[in-house]
C-alpha cells in the first residue's frame, strides 16, 4: 500500500505547486511550492504567521487555494475537504488535540470512520499501526486517563489507522517532554523508513535540524529556501527564517551575584495535581539569578505554584515575599481573561485584595505604561486580550507581573508557542529582570532553553531536588536518573 522509495525524480509523495492564498487584502501564501519525498521527514519552518499552517491546511483540504495545484504520488488531485485529503491518504495532526476525552482509544480511532463500530476490528487496526511504526496504545484505555504524550500518539495512530501515507504534524512537540520528543521522532522515522512521508511544521530549529531530511522555509508567505537538511546549519536556518541576522542576544551568563535570598523552602512537602506527594524539599532561591527548573512532565508544577503562593504545602514552611510575579504556563486560561480588556486584565492582578471602588483611570494609566515599556502591540488598552498575538500577550503578562518590581518572578514555560523573535524578547526581559536584582525562577520543558538562559539549574525529581550547571547533557542525565522506577509510565 505504500509506494517503495524510488531514487527517480518521481519519488514525490506530495507536491504543492505555485500555491497562492489570499484572505481579503492579505496574501497569506504567495506562489509557494513544496515537494515532499516518500521516505522522508520534511521540516516546514517559519515564524508565527509565516503561512506554515495555512499551507498545510490547503494540503489537507481545509482551505482551497486561489491558485496553484496539488499532486499526490504524482497524480493531480483536487482537495475540496478533509475527506478528500483522507481519501488521498493524507493525514493531519493539528496543534490542538481533537479527541473525545470520555471515549476510549479505540472509539476515538473509529471516529471519522465509516460503517459500524466494532471494537475488535479497531483494536486490530491499532495493533497493525503498532507493528508498522512502534506506536502503541491500549485500545481500551480512556483518553481522559492519557498523558499529553499519549494523546499526541493517539492522534497519530488515528491518522495512520485511517490509511495515511502522508502525515502532516503541526507543532507536535509543543506539549511533550524531552524524552517523549525523542520517542516521537523515533516512531516518525520508523514510519518514514517504511516509505511514508512526514511534514513537520515547527519553529524549533534544533528538532528540525536533528530529525528532518529536507527543509522548506517560509517567510511572510513565501518559500525562501528549499534544501536537504545536511546542507543546513542553525545560523543558516535562522537567517532564512528571519531574513536577517538572528536577533536573539547571545547567551550571557553571570556568576551568581550576592543579593541575598529571595525565598526559601524548609522541609516542604507538596501534593501535585495527580494527588502524589512530593518532598520534603529544602531550597534557597537566591536573588539576582535566573534559576532554571528542569523536571519530567508535571513534576515541577506543584513546586512553582507553592513558591508563588498558589499552592499551600502539606507540611513545612515557605518564606517568600508577599509580592511575587507569576507567569503561568497556560496564558489563555490562567494568565489572562481573553474576553476582558487589557485594562481589566491589569485590574485583575491583586483583585482578590482590593476593596471599595476601583480606580479605572489609574488602571488605564498602568496599562498604558505596561504596553509602552514592554513594546506590546495592541489595538488599544480597551481591546480584549484575545485580539493580541501570542507574543504580545506574553509580553503584556510579563509587563503586568513585573510592574511593581517584585523581588521574585516565577515563570512556567514562558516561551511556549512563541516564535523566535518573541522568544528572544522574553529571554531579554528575563535577563534584564535578573540584572535588576530580582530572583527569576522558570520552568521549561525545553532543555536547550534551560541551558541557554539559566544561571543555574534545579532538577526536580520525584522525591528530591538537585542543583546543577546549565549544561544540556548534565540536565538530561539528571532528569533521566530521576525518572521513577518502571511501571508508572509504560505505554
Amino acid at each position, binding site marked *: 500500500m505504500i509506494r517503495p522509495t524510488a531514487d527517480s525524480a518521481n519519488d514525490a509523495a506530495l507536491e504543492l505547486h505555485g500555491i497562492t492564498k489570499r484572505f481579503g487584502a492579505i496574501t497569506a501564501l504567495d506562489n509557494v511550492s513544496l515537494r515532499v519525498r516518500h521516505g522522508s521527514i520534511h521540516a516546514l519552518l517559519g515564524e508565527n504567521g509565516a503561512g506554515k499552517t495555512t499551507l498545510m491546511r490547503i494540503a489537507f483540504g481545509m482551505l482551497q487555494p486561489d491558485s496553484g495545484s496539488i499532486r499526490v504520488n504524482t497524480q493531480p488531485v483536487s482537495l475540496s475537504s478533509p475527506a478528500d485529503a483522507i481519501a488521498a491518504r493524507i493525514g493531519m495532526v493539528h496543534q490542538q488535540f481533537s479527541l473525545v476525552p470520555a471515549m476510549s482509544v479505540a472509539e476515538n480511532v473509529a471516529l471519522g470512520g465509516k460503517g459500524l463500530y466494532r471494537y475488535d476490528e479497531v483494536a486490530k487496526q491499532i495493533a497493525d499501526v503498532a507493528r508498522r511504526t512502534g506506536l502503541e496504545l491500549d485500545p481500551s484505555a480512556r483518553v481522559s486517563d492519557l498523558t499529553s504524550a499519549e494523546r499526541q500518539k493517539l492522534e497519530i495512530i488515528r491518522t495512520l489507522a485511517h490509511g495515511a501515507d502522508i502525515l502532516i504534524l503541526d507543532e507536535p512537540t509543543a506539549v511533550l517532554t524531552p524524552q517523549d520528543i525523542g520517542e516521537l521522532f523515533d516512531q516518525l522515522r520508523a514510519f518514514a523508513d517504511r516509505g511514508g512521508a512526514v511534514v513537520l511544521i515547527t519553529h524549533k530549529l534544533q528538532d528540525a535540524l536533528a530529525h528532518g531530511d529536507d527543509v522548506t522555509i517560509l517567510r511572510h508567505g513565501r518559500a525562501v529556501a528549499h534544501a536537504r537538511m545536511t546542507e543546513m546549519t542553525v545560523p543558516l536556518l535562522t537567517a532564512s527564517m528571519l531574513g536577517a541576522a538572528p536577533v536573539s542576544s547571545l547567551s550571557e551568563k553571570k556568576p551568581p551575584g550576592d543579593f541575598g535570598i529571595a525565598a526559601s523552602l524548609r522541609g516542604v512537602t507538596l501534593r501535585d495535581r495527580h494527588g502524589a506527594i512530593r518532598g520534603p524539599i529544602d531550597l534557597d532561591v537566591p536573588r539576582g539569578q535566573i534559576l532554571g527548573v528542569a523536571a519530567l512532565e508535571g513534576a515541577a508544577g506543584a513546586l512553582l505554584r507553592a513558591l508563588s*503562593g498558589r499552592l499551600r504545602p502539606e507540611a513545612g514552611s515557605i518564606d517568600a515575599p508577599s509580592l511575587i510575579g*507569576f507567569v503561568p504556563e497556560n496564558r489563555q486560561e490562567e494568565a489572562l481573561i481573553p474576553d476582558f480588556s487589557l485594562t481589566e486584565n491589569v*485590574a*485583575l492582578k491583586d483583585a482578590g485584595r482590593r476593596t471599595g*471602588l476601583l480606580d479605572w483611570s489609574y488602571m488605564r494609566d498602568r496599562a498604558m505604561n505596561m504596553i509602552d515599556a514592554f513594546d506590546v502591540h495592541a489595538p488599544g488598552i480597551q481591546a480584549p486580550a484575545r485580539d493580541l498575538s501570542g507574543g504580545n500577550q506574553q509580553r503584556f503578562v510579563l509587563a503586568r507581573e513585573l510592574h511593581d518590581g517584585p523581588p521574585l518572578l516565577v515563570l512556567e514555560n514562558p516561551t511556549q508557542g512563541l516564535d523566535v523573535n518573541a522568544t528572544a524578547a522574553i529571554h531579554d526581559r528575563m535577563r534584564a529582570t535578573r540584572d535588576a536584582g530580582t530572583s527569576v525562577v522558570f520552568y521549561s520543558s525545553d532543555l536547550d532553553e534551560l541551558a541557554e538562559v539559566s544561571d543555574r539549574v534545579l532538577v526536580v525529581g520525584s522525591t528530591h531536588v538537585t542543583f546543577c550547571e546549565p549544561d544540556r547533557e548534565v540536565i538530561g542525565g539528571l532528569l533521566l536518573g530521576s525518572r521513577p522506577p518502571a511501571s508508572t509510565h509504560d505505554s
Partner: protein
Amino acid sequence: MTAELAFITDALVRATPLIIAGLAVALAFRGGVFNIGAEGQLLVGATASAAVTLVTGETLGGFSVVVALLAGMIAGAFWAGIAAGLKARFHVLEIISTIMLNFVAIHLVSYLVRGPLQEPTRIYPQTETIPAMSRLPIVLPGTRLHLGFIIAAAAACVLAWFLAQTAPGFRIRAVGASFRAAWSVGLINTGKTSMWVFLASGALAGLAGSVEVSGVTFALYENLSPGYGYTAIAVALIAGLNPVGVIASGVFFGFLETGAIALQREFAIPASLASVAEAVLILAALSIAVTRGHGLPGTRRAPVQ
C-alpha cells in the same frame, strides 16, 4: 384614564418581577453560577413577605412593607443558600439542585396556603389579604403601577454600577469569565465569591416575589407566579446579562405577555402564541451569542480539577 395608559401601566406592572428576577439571573450568570432556581427563590420570598406582614399585622406601621421586602430577600437568599451549600460541600451541580428546589418551593406554597397560612374562613387556598398600609404605594394615581417598578429600575442601575466600578463586582465578573485566571492572577477566593453571588442572586429573586405580593396580589396563593423565574432567564439572556439592558428586555416581555392576554380576551387568539414568540426570541439570542463566538456565559469550559 385611557385604555392605552391602563395597558402600558399593566405591562410595566407585569415587567416588574421579570426585571428583578432577571437581575438575579444576570448577576448569577455573570458570576459563573448557573442559578436556574429564581422561580423557587421568588416563591419563598413571596411566602416570607406575606407571612411576616400577616404576623406583624399593623404593629410596624409604615415600616411594615420595608420589613416584608427584607424578609423576602432573606428567604430568597436562604433558598439559594441551600443549593450553594450543596455545591460547596458536596459538589452538587447548581443547575440540578436549583431546579429541584423550585419544585420543593411550589409544593411548600401549596401546603402553606392550605395549612398554617390559610385565610380564616378556610375556604380558599390562599392567605388573608395584607392590610393596605403594608402594600407598596401606587406611583401613578388611577393605575396599578406601584413603587416596585421604581425599585426594579433602581436595583438594575445599582447592580450595573456595582459590577462595573467596585472591587467585589469586578471579582464577580472575573470569576464568571475565568475561574482559573481569577484565582491564578487575582488570588481571588473563587469559592467565596461564588457563594456571595449565589446568595445575592437568591435575595434578588426573593425580592421579586416580595414585590409581587406587596404590590399586586396582596396575598399568597398557588400559581402566584406564572413562571416569572423561568422567563427571567430569557429576560437576562436577551439583555446580554447587562443589568440596564434587563430593564428594557423585562419591559419588552411585560408588554408581550400583557398583550397576549389582551389578544386572547378580545380576539380569541391563544395566549400561548406569546410563549412561542418568547421561545423564538430566546433561540435567536442564543444563536447570536454562539455565532459571535462567545458561547453562553457560564458555559465556558469548567476548570479541570
